[in-house]
């Protein structure tokens, strides 16, 4: 056991910190710091700067831009980005479809897609969930029927985050309607400019437009856009969902907001022991979470997802939500003024507080709800 970072890792951390705080435009990082909404341009700009430095997809195979870092370095890279308010590389590209193509795609697919994916020249959307297939993803009903050299896709996807920016979408589609649930699903890449693809916005309870429905009506997709083997899409989806061990819990971002909250609280923190205790308890839980993340990355060398990832997701989202709730309480009466413009006398953080709180209720629902995480822990770890 060893507390300190090795000299090399400490230097690596300093290097990351330096890069993120000097090379990513301040105005982009300010948007993150104020919990504002990033534009598509912000996200693209940031990722391209990272990619130029080899910092966008360090966990990919070296051939396609990966860095062969230790899990600890990837953890440091990920935490320091959040700490510096750098927008993370787009998860759909960097953590989801990229690794799948790199692992299961043909050489043609890799060459065609991976560089563009790393550089965010293609913005990927995710087409997994459907109105009747959320936690129970395997009951999806969007079909792809073979017609000559094409697939004809029909159906509806939903909860497609930032689908309004999407150039391409990676999809789970049913290619064998006779097979049992998980069997008969394939993994398909679709150009979103194809005729028959329609993106419809979903307004969320914070008033934002972050997710979409995506409808497919007789959309023609070249057969070469199928990834891996036909009817094996479920395996690739499982790989994709279980692929990330680093960054499962949003530790760095939550720590940053909590540190900001203490600043926002100002003198109140010293005057109100109950508030101080609430902050101290959250800080301690976040510390425990961060340490657990460090323990988990240290044990992920075998390439399989560490089951404790579910602990990180579960507790990570709970703490993210708890901190956002704290900020609403700190804002007090000003937390109602979410619709006020920048000419308001109320500081921006007070006006952003409630929309952020409401928006983050999703954190425990999307990407494997916390009920699913509990089930994974109970089954996989505890054998129940």
């Amino acid at each position: 056991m060893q507390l300190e970072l090795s000299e090399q890792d400490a230097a690596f951390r300093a290097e990351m910190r330096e890069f993120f705080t000097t090379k990513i435009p301040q105005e982009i990082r300010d948007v993150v710091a104020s919990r504002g909404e990033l534009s598509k341009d912000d996200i693209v700009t940031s990722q391209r700067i990272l990619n130029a430095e080899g910092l966008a997809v360090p966990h990919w195979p070296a051939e396609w831009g990966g860095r062969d870092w230790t899990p600890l370095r990837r953890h440091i890279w990920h935490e320091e980005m959040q700490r510096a308010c750098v927008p993370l590389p787009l998860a759909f590209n960097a953590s989801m479809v990229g690794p799948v193509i790199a692992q299961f795609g043909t050489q043609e697919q890799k060459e065609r897609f991976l560089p563009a994916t790393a550089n965010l020249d293609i913005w990927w959307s995710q087409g997994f969930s459907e109105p009747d297939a959320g936690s129970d993803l395997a009951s999806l009903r969007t079909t792809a029927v073979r017609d000559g050299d094409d697939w004809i896709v029909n159906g509806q996807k939903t909860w497609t985050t930032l689908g309004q920016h999407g150039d391409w979408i990676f999809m789970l589609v049913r290619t064998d309607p006779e097979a049992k649930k998980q069997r008969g699903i394939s993994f398909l890449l679709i150009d979103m400019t194809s005729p028959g693809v329609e993106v419809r916005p979903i307004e969320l309870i914070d008033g934002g437009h972050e997710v979409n429905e995506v409808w497919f009506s007789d959309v023609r997709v070249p057969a070469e856009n199928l990834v891996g083997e036909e009817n094996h899409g479920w395996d690739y989806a499982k790989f994709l969902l279980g692929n990330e061990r680093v960054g499962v819990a949003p530790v760095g971002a939550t720590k940053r907001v909590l540190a900001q909250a203490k600043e926002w609280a100002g003198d109140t923190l010293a005057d109100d022991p109950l508030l101080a205790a609430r902050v101290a308890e959250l800080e301690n839980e976040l510390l425990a979470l961060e340490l657990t993340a460090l323990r988990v990355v240290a044990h992920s060398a075998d390439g399989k997802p560490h089951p404790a990832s579910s602990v990180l997701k579960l507790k990570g989202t709970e703490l993210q939500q708890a901190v956002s709730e704290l900020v609403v309480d700190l804002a007090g009466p000003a937390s109602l003024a979410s619709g006020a413009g920048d000419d308001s006398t109320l500081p921006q953080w007070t006006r952003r507080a409630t929309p952020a709180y409401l928006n983050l209720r999703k954190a425990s629902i999307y990407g494997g709800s916390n009920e699913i995480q509990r089930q994974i822990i109970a089954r996989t770890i505890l054998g129940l």
Partner: protein
Amino acid sequence: MDFTHDDEQKALAEAVRGLLARTYGSYEDRRRTVKDEPGYDEKLWTGLAEMGVLGLPFSEADGGMGAGPIESALVAEELGRVIAPEPFLTSVVLAGGLVAALGTDAQRAETLGALSEGELLLAPALAEPGRGWTAEARDVVATGSGDAWTLEGVKEPVPHGATAGRLVVTAALPDGGTGVFLVEGDADGVTRTGYATHDGGRAAQVRLSGASATLLGDGTTDAAAAVARVVDETRVVACHQALGAMTVALESTTEYLRSRKQFGVPLATFQALTFRAADMYVSLELARSLAQWAAMVLGAASTGSADADPADAARRAALGTSRAARHVGQEAIQLHGGIAMTAEYHVGNYVSHLTALDHLLGDGHHHLRALAADVGGHAEVDPLP
């Protein structure tokens, strides 16, 4: 001690529910209404006036119905069930309550009469930027005396402050203490910037630059205690509005668990979910008991019971409601899943409204601090005076 409502009270609740159902028969109606200005349904507001609801808490001499806090609570609970955006709570109970508590006979008759008839909307301007919940004004300052007062400073957020005909404004008096003033919405020196709140309500920044104002009451005695009392009453009514919203949030959740299928079976098959619904029910019923009790305490206080402590009761009800509203609200979204994150579906907006109610006049943390400071002052809490 008796928790049951009498026939008249039941009839009032039913009448209000019926009227609301005509405007907000479906959630889509409510959603459409809050998208347009003024953020509520003016026809419904007139209907409430005709039914006597807008004058409910005021004396008959002032043009009201002379009802008590229990009646206001019943109305608020019905409004909460459909999260109606009509500003009964802020305009009638809070702003009207301030006028009723502090105004001269003439001020009361004039302002409350018009309010009761639906002709005049009042907006309570208490909150000051950068300060928490308090009955004491500090940053908005009154200058003058007698009939000639002017106000200087900024109030924000002021519920329905951009469209209200008259503002009820707390301001620091020249010799210390807080005065409450009437300011015409369109007076010179009043700049109002309105916006929507996250729950579809309306609020505004109100900038006062030498705006002329009328002091409520006869003299410049400190009105902070009276303001605090009216705020306490409003808190209890707000608890009931939250009760209505929580009740529907739970009903919707149980209905969803019964009807929505996952993994081939209704969600209600999953015990981990139904047990959490049971815990929501426990929270809700405990909060209901506190809110109803607090309304009775207010009622007893308003009829002169010396033992009733409405400030304490309001704190206790508000703390219990805050805890329950967060628990019930957060679980309602989580047990629904993604659908509850959408603006089109009602449950998320119920949670938004509960969050707004919780932060309008003081959240659970605020009230717990006050109760903790007092905890050594009694051996035990006895609900019967």
